[in-house]
């Protein structure tokens, strides 16, 4: 998993590239939580073709921390397979998903 940091308006953007699974969850969690210390975060999953429950756990933790701190946390660029995982797990109803970084920053 490679994570590149950039910005979109006032939001931080974490561009994830790789599988978000048991092996890559710890480093991804550390990165997202560190970015959330500084402000709202958009996780760009366009280059993520696989998210397992260990990955969902990371996103849930980030969403909860963001909520507690009164900051935004959203995802963009869900691949069809990843979208299926979000839907089956009900994550589509608790983590806002947008089509583009611009839409996420505006939302």
């Amino acid at each position, binding site marked *: 998993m490679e994570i590149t940091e950039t910005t979109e308006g006032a939001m931080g953007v974490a561009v994830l590239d790789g599988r978000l699974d*048991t092996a890559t969850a710890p480093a991804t969690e550390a990165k997202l939580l560190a970015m959330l210390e500084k402000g709202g975060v958009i996780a760009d999953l366009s280059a993520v*073709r*696989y998210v397992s429950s*260990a990955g969902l756990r990371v996103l849930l933790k980030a969403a*909860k921390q963001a*909520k507690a701190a009164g900051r935004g946390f959203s995802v963009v660029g869900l691949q069809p397979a990843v979208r*299926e995982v979000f839907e089956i797990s009900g994550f589509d*109803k608790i983590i806002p998903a947008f089509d583009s970084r611009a839409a996420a920053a505006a939302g």
Partner: protein
Amino acid sequence: MEPAFHLRLAPSPGNVATLLDALEAYAEASALPPAVAMRLALIAEELAANVAMHATGASFFALSVRPAEGGLELAIEDDGPAFDPLGAAAPDTAAPLETREVGGLGVHFLREMTRAPRYERREGRNRLVCTLPLEA
């Protein structure tokens, strides 16, 4: 019939990644549709990670895949303590963010993505069998 894929490994977190890499290469070699390949990896990861992290004393986990009527038959085995993943409570997938709990998703994926999952304990081994439909 001989399985098309059979991998047995010592149950460490690193070997969960080994299993996923092998499955990804197998899915490519077998030209599985991407959605099916992802579900296969998801189910395998959940169950293998459970053994690697919770099954005290287990010496291996193993996954077999064989073509069957209506899809791929998956069989996951380990020699850890008796544990029926199908006995776990389903998560509340409608809970709001504040009260949403992590955990329990593995068995939920198993129920939602596969057909006829069944568990048995035999000769000191856990064995879970299910059918993964081939439609994308």
